[in-house]
């Protein structure tokens, strides 16, 4: 039973990353109509920025949690202003190709300087150790990751679905010209939205730094699983990506316990099954 709970916890943690990443993708897709292939590379940058902050500036984990997403978010906004902006009105496949190129550049540069091996990042003192829950031993940091990312996901959902700013955002997705006519600076809003989505990816990167090692390719394979999560969920709603992300993490964890050989592939197999039954995805609108 111990092992089952441990795998469930691992599943929940992976689910937190899936949810944060697919949430960022959904936010970006909603406003920019771009599938951000660079999302995995930006997640990796988040982890690296946290590493540099600690290693070079002596800035601890708690500040990194705030500063790294801002730095990477600004980097993202520069990308949007200098490149992505020029794709407005073109087929969305060009966005996929452009961000794929950006991902190759970012990952290649990091691989040149840091090789493919990982850099260690210590768990902050306050979150070291573990708790005995009676039925299992819970490492505090892992519990923190699950709760913190859940809070961030719900806050993002609240921001987009329940606030005035979110209402502008959703309106601008539907009809940018009309929203502009009301005196709202839509291009600036698009830039900020991209920054927000990228910031979410970087935040996931910081969270994962103490668990997984900080590696240039840490986002490269993860992003394809997240794409599968997105296909299953359908990117129709913000809540949809959060729930699908967590649920698939848990299913993956359970597979690791009952049939480890399939743990790498279960998400993809599920994707095929969902598509056979419901081609639009679980919460999806028609593409």
């Amino acid at each position, binding site marked *: 039973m111990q092992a089952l709970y441990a795998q469930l916890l691992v599943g929940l943690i992976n689910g937190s990353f899936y949810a944060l990443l697919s949430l960022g993708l959904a936010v970006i897709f909603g406003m920019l109509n771009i599938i951000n292939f660079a999302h995995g590379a930006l997640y990796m940058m988040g982890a690296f920025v946290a590493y540099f902050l600690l290693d070079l500036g002596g800035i601890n984990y708690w500040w990194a949690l705030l500063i790294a997403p801002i730095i990477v978010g600004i980097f993202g906004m520069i990308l949007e202003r200098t490149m992505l902006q020029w794709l407005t009105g073109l087929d969305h496949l060009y966005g996929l190709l452009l961000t794929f190129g950006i991902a190759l550049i970012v990952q290649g*540069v990091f*691989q040149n300087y840091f090789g493919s091996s990982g850099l260690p990042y210590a768990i902050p003192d306050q979150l070291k150790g573990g708790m005995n829950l009676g039925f299992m031993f819970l490492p505090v940091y892992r519990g923190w990751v699950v709760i913190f990312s859940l809070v961030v996901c719900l806050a993002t959902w609240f921001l987009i679905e329940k606030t005035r700013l979110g209402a502008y955002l959703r309106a601008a997705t539907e009809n940018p010209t009309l929203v502009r006519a009301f005196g709202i600076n839509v291009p600036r809003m698009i830039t900020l939205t991209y920054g927000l989505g990228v910031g979410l990816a970087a935040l996931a990167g910081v969270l994962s730094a103490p668990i997984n090692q900080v590696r240039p390719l840490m986002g490269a394979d993860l992003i394809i699983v997240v794409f599968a999560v997105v296909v299953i969920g359908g990117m129709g709603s913000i809540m949809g990506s959060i729930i699908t992300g967590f649920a698939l993490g848990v299913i993956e964890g359970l597979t690791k316990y009952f049939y480890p050989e399939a743990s790498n592939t279960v998400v993809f197999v599920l994707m095929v099954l969902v598509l056979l039954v419901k081609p639009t995805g679980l919460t999806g609108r028609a593409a």
Partner: protein
Amino acid sequence: MTALTDDTLPVTPRAMRDEMIVFVVMALLLAAVPFSGIYPFFVMQALCFALLACAFNLLIGYGGLLSFGHAMFLGTAGYCSAHALKVWGLPPELGILVGVAAAFLLSVVTGYVSIRRQGIYFSMITLALSQLLYFIYLQAPFTHGEDGIQGIPQGHMFGVFDLSKPTVLYYVVLIGFLAGFLLIYRIINSPFGEVLKSIRENEQRAISLGYRTDQYKFLAFVLSGTLAGFAGSLKVFVAQNASLTDVHWSMSGEVVLMTLVGGLGTIFGPVVGAFVIIAMQQYLASFGQWVTVIQGAIFVICVLTFRRGVIGEIAHFLRRSL
């Protein structure tokens, strides 16, 4: 919304004459390679990728479908051919047949699943399916995991042509490439190809004209996947191994890059693109990881500034379809 291949020019009888002239020139140039002192293995490798890129272009350039998982056909056919040649001891022609049949079956299954979603979703599904296969091949015993299948016997094609001789192998690969290329050319210019183009331009209108567009897209997917598998089977004889790199998603990205550089929806573009990218990898190998950065930069530059690609720009300048 501007479609991916808006700039392609209509095909007229004069255009078809131009294309045949270019084809004959290309075939003669390639046939002369063994006499020119150019390293034949480089050209053979480029020819395999050129065929792969042409097969990929059949889908995106004429059907408007961006597959981000074409490496799965290359890799699957490669593994199956390699296994048939080495373990079952089949002759080369049957080995190729096994690989192509495997790619055909795979494309039927993956096509059935992926055609159900459009646009970006289609790309993501093909990507995820190819990653699924990557993990399967990583764990399956017959692929030997990280080592791959090595030391594949080349044998005698039809019991006559000794493929261990570089010149014989070169001409076999060249004939395979030219046959595949002509088949794709024939498909594009058939009534089926015309319907495919109409789906690319305006799927809703094609539906309202009474075409079952899903069936056309499915058939295009199967043809493209099977031909990509043929490229993978040929590549086994050139590289004499089948490995995980051929199935990894970065290979799918490279195929997209080749086609994009050469020109999406142009007939000769993928061939030029494949030669450019393979030459780049060959001659920039000393830069190590910077090659990835350079490839990424080419992607960005192509998308931002010259979306028509090399051949697309030339064709546009000459006002000819190429």
